[in-house]
């Protein structure tokens, strides 16, 4: 009898102690452009992160600690994101920040994260975020130049020497344009036409006529919907038979729907693996995770998971891996930097003190649109 009382008493003490530890949840802050022009990024990011935190807490948290998520909507506004980042650090006392969604916002928040020594895992693609490397800043989307390289490798294989580029005049397009021109001249391509269009333009036949006259071996278009869909249609209207490459910015079924499977036929693009997970070989390391993410997202929100939501997924995986080594901001930072072959949505991350993105060419698959669906190309 006495033994039993001792046992019960010690059990209770243990439980209380555990509750006391568990009562101190780890606070994760998030800055996403949930509304406004970049909402196509922010909304799936927020949904994904909320879903993952809920799942993790249902399983008892990460490394024995419950998670608490504080999400703020930056509306894609640079000033707001700095204010909200301040609020996350000073008022909410978060240990790590996920986001912001866009490159401009991320660049604005970086000085603050560096000064306050809070790790920031940005969900924006701009190369400037992690190059040069900043101690407290990471990012999960692959750099634009990885996608550019993927295209150029394909073009080189098909002996396409003269390239025409047409890019959208926003941040995504001008970053793509810089990378395209730099890498193309590095690798011995010639850029014979360099055209631009506005994000709200409704007809690009003028630019494409000029491109047609320059007789390129391939056309590379860099933009996000709906521009590239209009370009695909315009290319067909003008009867241009030159191979057409698109960026990873349109790697979604939405693009095929907008362009129409007729105009989209034969277009080549680098796509994140999430887009084509059902076409991946059985032994792909990411396959299981991609499928479960897609299913869970569909179950929770009724729509397909998007690459953009995947950026937040990556951030969560990196952070929860790091948490196993300790939960202070400095420990989380070190943990993320030491990530080795961490399998996630955007790719397999291997970080180092000189690489705070951790993705390489394997983050993308080259695909061709065939009869309204993706087809992997070698």
């Amino acid at each position, binding site marked *: 009898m006495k033994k039993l009382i001792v046992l019960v008493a010690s059990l209770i003490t243990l439980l209380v102690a555990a509750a006391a530890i568990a009562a101190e949840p780890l606070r994760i802050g998030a800055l996403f452009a949930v509304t406004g022009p970049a909402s196509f990024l922010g909304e799936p990011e927020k949904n994904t992160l909320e879903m993952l935190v809920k799942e993790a807490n249902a399983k008892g948290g990460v490394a024995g600690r419950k998670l608490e998520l504080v999400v703020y909507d930056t509306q894609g506004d640079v000033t707001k994101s700095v204010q909200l980042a301040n609020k996350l650090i000073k008022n909410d006392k978060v240990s790590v920040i996920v986001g912001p969604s866009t490159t401009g916002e991320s660049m604005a928040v970086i000085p603050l994260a560096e000064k306050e020594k809070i790790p920031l895992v940005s969900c924006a693609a701009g190369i400037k975020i992690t190059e040069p490397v900043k101690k407290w800043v990471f990012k999960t989307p692959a750099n634009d130049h990885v996608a550019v390289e993927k295209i150029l490798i394909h073009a080189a294989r098909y002996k396409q020497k003269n390239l025409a580029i047409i890019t959208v005049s926003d941040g995504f397009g001008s970053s793509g344009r810089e990378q395209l021109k730099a890498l193309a001249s590095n690798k011995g391509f010639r850029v014979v036409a360099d055209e631009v269009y506005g994000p709200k333009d409704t007809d690009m036949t003028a630019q494409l006529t000029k491109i047609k006259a320059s007789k390129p071996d391939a056309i590379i278009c860099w933009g996000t919907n709906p521009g590239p869909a*209009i370009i695909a249609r315009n290319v067909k209207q003008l009867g241009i038979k030159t191979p057409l490459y698109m960026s990873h910015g349109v790697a979604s079924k939405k693009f095929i729907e907008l362009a129409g499977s007729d105009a989209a036929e034969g277009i080549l693009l680098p796509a994140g693996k999430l887009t084509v997970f059902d076409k991946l070989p059985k032994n792909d390391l990411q396959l299981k995770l991609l499928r479960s993410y897609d299913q869970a997202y569909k179950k929770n929100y009724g729509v397909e998971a998007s690459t953009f939501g995947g950026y937040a997924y990556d951030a969560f995986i990196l952070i929860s891996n790091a948490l196993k080594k300790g939960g202070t901001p400095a420990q989380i930072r070190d943990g993320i930097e030491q990530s080795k072959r961490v399998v996630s949505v955007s790719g397999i991350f291997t970080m180092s003190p000189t690489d705070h993105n951790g993705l390489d060419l394997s983050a993308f698959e080259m695909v061709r649109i065939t009869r309204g669906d993706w087809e992997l190309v070698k």
Partner: protein
Amino acid sequence: MHIGQQIAQYLLSGLSTGAIYALIGVGFAIIHNATGIINFAQGEFVMLGGMFTVFFLTVLNLPLLVSVILAIAAATIVGVAFERLAIRPMKNASPISLVIITIGGSILIRGIAMLVWGKDTHAIETFSGNEPIQLGEATILPQHLWIFAVTTVVIICSKLYFNYTISGKAMRACAYNSRAAGLVGIDVRRMVLFSFAISSAMGSMAGIIIAPLTMTSYDVGVMLGLKGFCAAIIGGMSSGLGTVFGGVILGILESLGAGIFSSGYKDAIAFIILLIILFIRPQGLFAKGDTERV
């Protein structure tokens, strides 16, 4: 492909975008002619036309023609409601405050559309196929012919309406002098309501016929509205040929600018031309200057 072929394509591309600008511009002109204000919510009716059509086509699965008619009707109702709720209650407001109200209205309509339909871009099937039509050295799409046809019909109808019907003449009378029009027994308020109904119907029609080419989303109205406004300004706010020429000039300048100079400065070229026109001929290229009798 030599330069002649290129220019033929630039001209044809410019003509087809210009026709779209013209159709939107006429909507601006009609309200301006009846009320003396610029309705900056005009672009939103273009958006509503396209989005309502998408809604009826995909959500309610109605046939194209029925969807189009319902979409025009729905956009017209929104236009009428807008006038009743936002413009009419402002008794004796100066034109400038009414213009500001229309800007507010446009933001409101855009916001509601975003909440109701989401932020995605949508495409509509073209009315008669996607096979390009070869015109000499240049190509256009069958949908462009629809745009030309609808623009022509709309311009002719509005010309006939304003010149040969009682209510059309009454509307013009309101524009010249609404007080005097009221004194001779014209119901000025009804005419204003009418002008909003007509121009929202017209705007939505423009939105519907261009949606298969340009796609549609909750925010297409901003840029298209602005371009339509430019067309109307160049044309001297006429509800007839002036605005058509205005639209076509703008469209051709844009496409020549993009093709021959630099596509990066396409919009800049078009807007610089607009500024020059406003400096030199503020009454528009085709309008005769107002003559004031004392």
